């Protein structure tokens, strides 16, 4: 049985600046996300992972390629009605819960802002109900609506960020490093909340992170991105079992292990993109095994195939 594809990104290219100062942040990226799964996008800062997320919600303009959501093209010029629809169906959670909540407005306004924008409520009564419900969904009390963000702890603030996304009843949530700015003890709470909500509401996540240990725990499939290009994509388990691309290996080796004996024996792999000789033999995007894609040239693919377990 084929799974339903919710979002498809085809050959996405995002450029900033013009002419001489042109910088290609995302270069020919393609992937798709199935309905109900958690798809991870992993890479270092500057790899373009956030830009992809922003391009999907139409904050960044794209230079080439297309983005298809539920069978409809949502990139470039689109119908205003569709635009409104996407605004509701695709929501975002940001990294820093202090910077992303307006400190001068009450939680009530912060959570309802999206509703106000697309007038997705019939009466004031209904709006209040929706706010109360989404606060309860993330484990906060409805009374908190009358408070200001500074009255909350870091973990609670991030919950408000999640509530603000949930109130729109989205299908896809783009979580951009939602736990990097939090203390370790609070990270666990937010990760658990995200998985719980997924089970209850059948949400689909695009989870953007730089830390593979978190990605291993929460995602179903993962794409590794380096300098605007996806270099490897596979099921999360497969990537951890069979990392093939040297950059994926480098990322894996940098996960700190909470185990002194193993951690001290571990060899840190540093990735240098000069090891690829792409002067004659050009690299391609190849499915090396069912569901496991990799970016490399013919010689590399041959070598990697032998390394598969």
């Amino acid at each position, binding site marked *: 049985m084929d799974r339903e594809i919710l979002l498809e990104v085809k050959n996405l290219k995002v450029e900033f600046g013009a002419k001489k100062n042109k910088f290609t942040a995302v270069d020919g990226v393609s992937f798709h996300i199935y309905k109900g799964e958690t798809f991870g996008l992993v890479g*270092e*800062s*500057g790899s373009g992972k956030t830009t992809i997320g922003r391009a999907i919600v139409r904050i960044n303009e794209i230079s080439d390629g297309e983005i298809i959501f539920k069978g409809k093209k949502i990139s470039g010029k689109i119908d205003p009605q569709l635009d409104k629809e996407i605004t509701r169906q695709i929501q975002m959670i940001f990294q820093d819960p202090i910077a992303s909540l307006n400190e001068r407005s009450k939680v009530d306004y912060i959570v309802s802002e999206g509703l106000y924008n697309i007038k997705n409520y019939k009466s004031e009564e209904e709006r209040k109900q929706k706010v109360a419900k989404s606060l309860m969904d993330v484990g906060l009390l409805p009374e908190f609506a009358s408070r200001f963000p500074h009255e909350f*702890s*870091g973990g609670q603030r991030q919950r408000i960020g999640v509530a603000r996304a949930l109130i729109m009843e989205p299908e896809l949530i783009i979580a951009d490093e939602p736990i990097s700015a939090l*203390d*370790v*003890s*609070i*990270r*666990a*709470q937010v*990760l*658990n909340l995200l*998985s*719980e909500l997924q089970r209850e509401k059948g949400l689909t996540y695009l989870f953007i992170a*730089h*830390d*593979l*240990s*978190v990605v*291993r*725990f*929460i995602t179903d499939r993962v794409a590794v991105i380096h300098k605007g290009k996806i270099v490897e994509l596979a099921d999360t388990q497969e990537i951890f079992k069979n990392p093939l691309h040297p950059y994926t290996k*480098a*990322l894996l*080796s*940098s*996960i*700190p*292990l*909470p*185990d*002194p*004996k193993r*951690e*001290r024996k*571990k060899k*840190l792999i*540093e*990735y240098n993109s000069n090891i690829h000789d792409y002067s004659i033999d050009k690299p391609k995007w190849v499915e090396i095994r069912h569901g496991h894609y990799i970016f490399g040239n013919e010689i590399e693919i041959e070598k990697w195939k032998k390394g598969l377990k």
Partner: protein
Amino acid sequence: MNKILSVDDLVIKFKLRGRILTALRGVSLEIFEGETLAIVGESGSGKSVLAKSFMGLLDNNGWIDSGSILYDRKDIAKYKNEKEWLTIRGKEIAMVFQEPMTSLNPLKTIGKQVEEAVELHQGLRGNDAKNEVITILENVGISNPQSRYSQYPHEFSGGMRQRVVIAIAIACKPKILICDEPTTALDVTIQAQFIKLLKELKNKYNLTIIYITHDLGVVANIADKIAVMYAGDIVEIGKCEEVFYNGQHPYTWALLSSLPQLGIKGQPLYSIKGTPPNLFYDIKGDAFAPRNEHALKIDFVERPPYFDVSPTHKARTWLLDQRAPKLEPPQSIRLLRKEWEAK
């Protein structure tokens, strides 16, 4: 090994909006020369306050209420003015802060900023100073130090900036280097490289390192000794292996179990319920008791003393009392232990 710093029953208080907050509630600690001590705890546990008190960097509304900090046979807890502190700060104990962008001056070249420290603490001038700067930049892993010397902080990436901050600290030729969450703002790949660099520098410059972090996961590689802090108190301290494989305090278990590295996919990750106690109030009993699902009755009544687990390992928990019931640590901890015992 020689004792380089010893803290005894340190109490630090702050005055905030007319109320008094007890940030450290009697912390005792010994650090030996050449050792790396990791101080681990949640935000608000007092780990930064402790480190700042070694350098006289407490905010103006804070003071050392009682206790002593012995460094080189002098009680630096008694130091009052900047003149006294300047004999310690930088020269003896230097610090690397969390956010490299805010600790560098955006208007000065990298070279000049390192040179300042070289001139002040090593007394070098002119070309000698410049050569020393270039050597240090090279040692902290900055390639092309000659040309990087005249660049500005904005031309450096986050990881490289943090290397510059460390270069400045090392230029002071300190005996103790304090790193306060040095990698929290950095990517994991850069974090791993930074920790590797820190280990190299430790050997090259004969440093004693105090590494502060909220993430127990990152210190397995670098720490010789780990102190776990909670609510202004060290609840457990021991050798790195002892704390990881044979942790005794429920808070240590909680910190370890909430790491996604130890999580089992499909199962909820262990998370610590509730919030740390309000330090404006007196704390009765074990500060962690209200968040500890296995807390004993006595945990709410009397503060536990330290129980020795080994000569180098002690923990402040009633669970180690003879009369306490035997409690199994959580599954992830048991797995870690098993692996350790197997070797």
